């Protein structure tokens, strides 16, 4: 039923990385390391998976794959592909996210954002049209 090569499992791996990032973020806020995870449901923390498919577009200069937005999640882990297009908003400019084969993009979502900002600033991203797809994990 399963490919033998798939020895690890994505859900477990995402949970592991998420827990690690939440622990470090908790400590950075001066909290106990399990604090953020427990506020997000502890062992019942919800992970959502989204595979985004961006087909070829006849006029990519006029349309967007994803419009400017903030993520409703607490944390989003993004596995981009080598096709550029993801941009993040920083100091009134868009910054392109460079694809690095071994890197995972982490986005602080709406639910955690308020804890990190003295002033409410939106962590905003947009996606120009990419070919193929990206994988997104949201932690609620």
């Amino acid at each position: 039923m399963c490919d033998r090569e798939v020895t690890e499992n994505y859900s477990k791996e995402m949970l592991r990385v998420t827990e690690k990032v939440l622990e470090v973020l908790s400590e950075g806020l001066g909290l106990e390391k399990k604090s953020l995870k427990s506020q997000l449901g502890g062992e019942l923390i919800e992970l959502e998976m989204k595979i985004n498919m961006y087909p070829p577009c006849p006029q990519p200069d006029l349309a967007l794959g994803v419009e400017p937005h903030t993520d409703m999640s607490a944390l989003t882990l993004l596995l981009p592909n080598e096709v550029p297009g993801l941009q993040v908003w920083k100091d009134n400019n868009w910054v392109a996210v460079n694809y690095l084969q071994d890197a995972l993009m982490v986005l602080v979502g709406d639910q955690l954002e308020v804890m990190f900002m003295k002033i409410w600033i939106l962590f905003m991203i947009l996606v120009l049209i990419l070919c193929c797809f990206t994988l997104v994990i949201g932690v609620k």
Partner: protein
Amino acid sequence: MEVKRIQSLALKQLKEVPPEFIRSPNERPENTKAIEGVTVPLISLSHPHNLLVKEISEAASEWGFFQITHHNISQTLIQSLREVGEEFFGLPQEEKEGYANDPSNGKFDGYGTKMTKNLEEKMEWLDYFFHLISPPSKLNYHMWPKHPSSYRCVYHPNILKVIKILH
């Protein structure tokens, strides 16, 4: 209601995108160009703990974004994810529609195309497949693709348990 899928639109080899996709000038790529010389923080999870706390906290508060390396997720697994994803979107349209979600009725799991419209009623050029992957007690397995058969192996948090139950 039949939903217009972006993948089906793309197959029509249109010369122009339909008007509902055309962005106002301020949102178009030419006016949302990225600036040069600035990159998102890149942080290795292998850094000593105290340094890692400092780096990630700074990136979270100053950027809200960062890239992490040395996360120990194997390239084989990442490759498998890409393959099952591509295989799912490569299925016949009719089969994919069998997993169609219905966000307006609160059914978010499954195959979808964003229908929520913004103020300008503009649509996004993407289709997606979405579902919960944890905690196991809340998973809605019947919305998980049967094809490719390796899909469940890659995404399932408790695949061995399920195989046991099925047998």
